């Protein structure tokens, strides 16, 4: 007998200590571990907590008998083999125990050999029993439907799952008879089953609610008598959900591929090394590659410029880490070598083991780029235009009044740096007293009507400038802007003032002329009227007196008219001088001789000093005579009786000088320049002076037309000196 000790335990229940000892020794000797109890209750208590490989159970025990213990074991479904021990006279009880489920029995005194055989058999049967139990439980509880039919297809066994699978497939089917609701399916299964071959496949049937159900079946013939197969085994699994999921997945894939093909932009996928694994239709069309070329191996970097590849890889590596979608602008190349600007959006494809590749989309931005460029050119054009405008233009935010834009001219015009301008409010451009008004009118600007006005601005350095302002409002992107165009009208204002001044002077001139003409005219009219009326009463002397007055006044009127006409000719530029080579001293001494008579009448000493020996002028003799008459005549007019007027001539290399000096009342300093103005007369309380008031003005015009100058020096009550300089005819000019 083997003496090895293994973990096999045998429970011995007997009320006789002797028998327990005896059996225990045999069991130990057989290599098993004995555990002993003396009562039935004790045995049950122990069996509740421990398990044993076999039990030797005395039929008769006080308290719970062996039969009671056996009943307990059977009821608790214990598979442990129970060997009853009985006396020789208890055969009926033993038979009853065997019926109840005891494995065998031994009679006292226990024979050790018999015990060894019984235990060995019990152990092996117990193992077998356990195996069968496990197998049948496995088959019965398997989630896979198991069905066994005979060779004709009649179901001999079906596990629990079978009914649940087929119940779902065909709730009305009578599985045992093989009749199913669907005619095709059972016949297929049956056909497969009765074919006697191993078969595997899916089948479909309509379910109770009209949908489709799918099952996967493995059919194989089984034989329990040698090699002849007497039965057919089918393992059937409900794969409806799997099929549904798979179909849904396929549909979804197809949908995405279809959608991708509809996209006008190329869409691609690569493997982890960067080789293109997928492209939509637009990808092939755009880049000009074929599907075959892609399959042969087409690397994504081939689409990029050599210089861009490092950037592409950097971008992709960054994405590998962060997994975020990004975009980059690149030039991408077609198969034929041409390229276009594009935005390439790419994202990593992740699976369980990490990044398995990339997918992305290529957006052609050629048109966008062109539009952008055009827009930029346009913007530049208008900016240059804006800058080139010679008027100062400013744009302000209509709400806040802050300046936001201006042209270069505005910076210079307002004399501010760009930084200063950006901090200014529109009203800061106006002088202090106009600011309120400017701010008010700024608010009242209307969108539709540009406004024009003349106003004044003040520069950064406090200079006031007259401007013509055109202002308007316009709206862009929901913001209201004010635009002001400032035009410097200083010049315009000045010329307007000049024109007004000219008109005023002309009016004064006309009014003065008419006044000057009226006085002699009134005399002439009065005396001629008197002569006509009283021709018989008047004596000869009176008649002569009146006639000579009429003559004088007529001469005065005539010279007045001559002067006025002269001035008018000079003013309109219509005067022409008949220049010839003349000796100025001859002309001037002639004038002096003529005026000597008048000087004598006025009791004024008139002296001519110095002469210009054979010096020649290129001048109009009548004009020069007029200059001399006007200037000397002027001196005589303003010199009181008893005074003197000195006329002197001198010369140097280039010029001759003609000076007229009197000892009259002189001219106040502030009036010195005005003496040459038309109709100007220095106001003197004492002296009464008649004349046209045009003499000096005419003289200056003539002198200047001959390339000369005339100046006056004077101090009040010290007389005045007029100095005329005229250029001499040069030797080289001599014919």
């Amino acid at each position, binding site marked *: 007998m083997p003496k090895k000790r293994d973990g096999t335990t045998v429970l011995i229940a007997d009320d006789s200590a002797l028998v327990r000892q005896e059996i225990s020794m045999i069991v130990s000797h057989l290599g098993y571990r004995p555990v002993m109890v003396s009562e039935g209750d004790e045995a049950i208590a122990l069996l509740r907590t421990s398990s044993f490989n076999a039990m030797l159970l005395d039929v008769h025990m006080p308290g719970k008998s062996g039969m009671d213990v056996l009943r307990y074991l059977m009821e608790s479904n214990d598979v442990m083999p129970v060997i009853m021990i009985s006396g020789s006279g208890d055969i009926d009880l033993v038979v009853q125990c065997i019926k109840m489920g005891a494995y065998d029995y031994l009679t006292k005194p226990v024979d050790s050999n018999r015990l060894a055989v019984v235990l060995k058999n019990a152990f092996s049967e117990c193992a077998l029993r356990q195996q069968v139990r496990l197998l049948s439980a496995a088959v019965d509880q398997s989630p896979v439907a198991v069905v066994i039919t005979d060779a004709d297809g009649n179901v001999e066994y079906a596990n629990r799952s079978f009914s649940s699978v087929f119940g779902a497939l065909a709730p009305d089917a009578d599985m045992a008879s093989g009749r199913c609701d669907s005619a095709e399916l059972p016949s297929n299964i049956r056909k497969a089953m009765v074919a006697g071959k191993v078969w595997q496949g899916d089948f479909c049937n309509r379910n109770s609610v009209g949908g489709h159900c799918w099952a996967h079946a493995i059919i194989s013939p089984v034989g329990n008598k040698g090699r002849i197969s007497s039965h057919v085994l089918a393992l059937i699994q409900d794969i409806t959900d799997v099929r549904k999921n798979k179909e849904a997945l396929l549909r979804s894939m197809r949908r995405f591929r279809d959608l991708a093909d509809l996209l006008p932009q190329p869409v691609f996928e690569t493997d982890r090394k960067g080789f293109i694994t997928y492209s939509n239709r637009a990808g092939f069309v755009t880049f000009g590659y074929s599907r075959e070329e892609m399959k042969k191996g087409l690397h994504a970097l081939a689409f990029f410029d050599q210089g861009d590849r490092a950037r592409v890889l950097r971008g992709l590596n960054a994405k590998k880490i962060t997994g975020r979608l990004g975009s980059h602008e690149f030039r991408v190349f077609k198969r034929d070598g041409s390229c276009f600007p594009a935005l390439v959006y790419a994202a990593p494809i992740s699976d369980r083991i990490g990044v398995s590749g990339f997918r992305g989309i290529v957006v052609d931005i050629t048109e966008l780029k062109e539009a952008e460029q055009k827009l930029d050119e346009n913007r530049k054009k208008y900016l240059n235009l804006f800058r080139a405008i010679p008027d100062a233009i400013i744009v302000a935010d209509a709400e806040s009044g802050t300046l936001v834009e201006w042209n270069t001219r505005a910076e210079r015009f307002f004399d501010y740096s760009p930084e200063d301008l950006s901090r200014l409010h529109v009203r800061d451009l106006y002088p202090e007293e106009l600011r309120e008004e400017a701010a008010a009118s700024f608010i009242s600007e209307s969108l539709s009507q540009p406004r024009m006005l003349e106003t004044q601005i003040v520069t950064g350095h406090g200079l006031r400038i007259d401007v013509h302002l055109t202002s308007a409002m316009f709206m862009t992107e929901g913001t209201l802007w004010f635009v002001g165009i400032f035009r410097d009208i200083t010049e315009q204002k000045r010329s307007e003032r000049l024109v007004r001044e000219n008109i005023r002077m002309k009016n004064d001139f006309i*009014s003065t002329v*008419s*006044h000057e003409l*009226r*006085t002699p*005219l*009134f*005399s002439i*009219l*009065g*005396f001629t*009227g*008197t002569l006509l*009326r009283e021709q018989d009463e008047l004596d000869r002397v*009176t008649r002569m*007196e009146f006639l000579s*007055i009429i003559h*004088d*006044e007529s001469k005065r009127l005539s010279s007045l008219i001559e002067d006025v006409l002269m001035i008018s000719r000079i003013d309109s530029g219509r005067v022409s001088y008949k220049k010839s080579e003349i000796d100025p001293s001859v002309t001037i001494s002639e004038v002096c001789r003529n005026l000597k008579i008048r000087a004598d009448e006025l009791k004024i000493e008139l002296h001519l000093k110095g002469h210009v020996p054979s010096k020649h002028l290129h001048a109009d003799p009548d004009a020069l005579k007029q200059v001399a008459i006007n200037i000397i005549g002027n001196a005589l007019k303003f010199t009181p009786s008893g005074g003197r007027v000195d006329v002197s001539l001198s010369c140097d290399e280039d010029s001759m000088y003609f000076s007229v000096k009197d000892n009259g009342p002189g001219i106040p300093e502030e009036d010195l320049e005005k003496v040459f103005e038309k109709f100007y007369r220095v*106001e*003197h*309380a*004492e*002296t*009464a*002076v*008649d004349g046209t008031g045009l003499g000096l003005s005419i003289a200056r015009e003539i002198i200047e037309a001959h390339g000369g100058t005339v100046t006056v020096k004077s101090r009040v009550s010290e007389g005045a000196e007029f100095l005329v300089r005229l250029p001499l005819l040069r030797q080289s000019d001599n014919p």
Partner: protein
Amino acid sequence: MKRHVILIVDDSANIRRLLAHNLGRKFTVLTAGDAAAALEMLDSGEKPDLIVVDISMPGMDGFSLTSLIKGNPDYCAVPLVMLTAKDSSEDREKGLQLGAVDYITKPFNLEEFADRIGMLLQ
């Protein structure tokens, strides 16, 4: 019947001579070449019945002379006629405001002028 005395103040000798001759047939005429001479005559005791004053004269003009005469209680009652070559309503207004009884613009008809003065004296 006593002849009325007329004082003529004008800077133009020819005008003075013309007016003196024409008015001289009806009135006794005194003349002065400027405002100063006229005032001197008045101060020296001349008592004209009417004064004719030219507005534009060198030195003191006719307006100033008029206001001086009108401001002096000794002569303010003497009627004063203004004479001018300037035909402006402003000057006319100014002259009448200062107290002139008439304002006559040159040129004018001498006979009518004499008649007008005769009427003013009545």
